[in-house]
C-alpha cells in the first residue's frame, strides 16, 4: 500500500509538473472554491485580530527607528518642492490613474484571496475569479500599491496567482528616472527583497529610484506585463554591489504578506 502511494505520487508529479490546471484540479476547485470563499470571509475578523497583534509588536520595535527617521526627514523638507515636482513628472511618465496603480487601457477584474500556499518555497495564492470572469493565464495582478504577480493557472471560478516573490518569477522592468532596463528576480524567504539585475546600461542607480514594468518580455520571462505598472523602489544600491554583482535591491510596493483584494488586468495581450 505504501509503495503504491509513493509510486502514485511520483507518477502524478511527473505527469503534472509544468502544466497549468488539469481536469481533476478544475473539478476539485469548482467544488471547494465557494466553500473557501465563505470560510475566507467568515475568518477574516479572526485573521485581522491575529495580524493586528503581530503588527503591534512589530510597530513597537520600529517606533524608535521611525522617530530618528522623522528627525532626518524634517531636515529634508526644504527639498520637498523638488520632490513634488518629481512626483508629478513620474505620474505623467507612468500614466497612472487616480488610484496610482492601473494603466487606463486595461480591463479590470476584482477578486478576493481565498487561499495561500503554506510553505516558504511556493509563493502562490488563489483568488475567487477565473476564466468565466475573463481572466487568462499571464494576466498581471495588482493591488492598490503596485504589481503583485501574474495569473499562473485558471479554472472556471478561481485562478492561481504566482507572486512576484515566487522563485520562478521574472519581471522585465525599467528604472525611472534613470531609464535603465533590467530584470527583477525574488529572493526565496524574503518577500520584501527583490534583486534587480542589470541587463543593459552603464548608469549608476541610487536609493529611492522607482522601478516599473518595462512591457517587454523574452524567453526567460513568461509574464507579459504591460508597461509602467509600479513594482517597487530601490532600497540598497551600493556602488560595490553594482560594480561587482551588477545588482541592486528593490523593495516591492505591494505588501505581499498582507493581500486581500486584488485586481487582475485582463485587457492586455497575452500572446
Amino acid at each position: 500500500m505504501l509503495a503504491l502511494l509513493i509510486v502514485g505520487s511520483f507518477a502524478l508529479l511527473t505527469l503534472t509538473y509544468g502544466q497549468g490546471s488539469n481536469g481533476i484540479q478544475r473539478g476539485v476547485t469548482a467544488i471547494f472554491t465557494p466553500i473557501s470563499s465563505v470560510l475566507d470571509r467568515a475568518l477574516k475578523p479572526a485573521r485581522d485580530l491575529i495580524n493586528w497583534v503581530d503588527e503591534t509588536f512589530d510597530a513597537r520595535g520600529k517606533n524608535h527607528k521611525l522617530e530618528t527617521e522623522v528627525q532626518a526627514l524634517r531636515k529634508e523638507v526644504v527639498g520637498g518642492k523638488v520632490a513634488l515636482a518629481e512626483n508629478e513628472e513620474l505620474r505623467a511618465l507612468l500614466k497612472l490613474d487616480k488610484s496610482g496603480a492601473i494603466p487606463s487601457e486595461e480591463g479590470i477584474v476584482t477578486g478576493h484571496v481565498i487561499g495561500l500556499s503554506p510553505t516558504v518555497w511556493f509563493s502562490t495564492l488563489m483568488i475567487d475569479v477565473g476564466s468565466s470572469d475573463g481572466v487568462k493565464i499571464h494576466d498581471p495582478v495588482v493591488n492598490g500599491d503596485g504589481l503583485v504577480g501574474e495569473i499562473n493557472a485558471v479554472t472556471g471560478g478561481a485562478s492561481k496567482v504566482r507572486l512576484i516573490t515566487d522563485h520562478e518569477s521574472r519581471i522585465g522592468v525599467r528604472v525611472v528616472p534613470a531609464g535603465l532596463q533590467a530584470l527583477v528576480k525574488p529572493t526565496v524567504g524574503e518577500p520584501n527583497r527583490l534583486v534587480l539585475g542589470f541587463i543593459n546600461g552603464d548608469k549608476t542607480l541610487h536609493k529611492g529610484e522607482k522601478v516599473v514594468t518595462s512591457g517587454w518580455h523574452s524567453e526567460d520571462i513568461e509574464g507579459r506585463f504591460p508597461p509602467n505598472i509600479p513594482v517597487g523602489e530601490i532600497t540598497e544600491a551600493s556602488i560595490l554591489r553594482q560594480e561587482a554583482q551588477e545588482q541592486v535591491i528593490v523593495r516591492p510596493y505591494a505588501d505581499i504578506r498582507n493581500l486581500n483584494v486584488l485586481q487582475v488586468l485582463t485587457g492586455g495581450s497575452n500572446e
Partner: protein
Amino acid sequence: MILTPKIVARLVVVGLLGVLLQLTFFSQIELFHVSPDVLPALVVVLGLLGGSLTGAVSGFAIGFLLDCLLIQPLGGASLVLIAVGFAAGTFRERFEIHSRLVAPLLCAVFTLLAELGFGAVEAMFGINTDVSIFVVRDMLIKTIFAFFIGWALYAGMRRLVRPALVDEATVRRTRRPTVLGA
C-alpha cells in the same frame, strides 16, 4: 485505531477542514512574520493515533487535496506528507507514548522535516534564484508553532476518535468497577 465507517467519515471531515483552514486562515495570519503550517502536524497526529498505514494514507489524501486546491503539480505535497504520516505511525507502533510532550515534539520535528521535504521536492525541479537564510528562520518558527498546534491537535483528535482507539478501549475494559458505599 479501529476504522469503522463513522470514524473514517470523521477523519475525512478533519482532513478537509484542515486543508481548508490552512489555506483560508493559517496561511493568511502571521506571528513573528511567519504563518503556521498545520498540515504536517495534522498528519503526524493521525499517524500517531491510527498507525503507519492510516498516517500514510492521510498524508497522501491531504497532500493531494492541497495540491489540487493550489493548482500545484500533483503529488509533491503528497510525497512529503506520506513520509511524515508513515514515520509518525511507525513510531507509534514501535514505542509507547507515555509523556504528553511526545506528540507535540514529534509534530515539531516532523514539521521541520516536512518543510525541508517541500524544499527538496522544489529543488528537484530547480530553484533558479537566491535563497535567503531567512528560510531557515521561517522553518524554525514554523517548528515552534507546530509544537503548540500539535499539542492542541493531539488532544482534540484523541477526543474525536476515542471510540476507535485500541488503548482507550483496553483501559475502559480493565477499569475496576466503582463500588458504591465502600
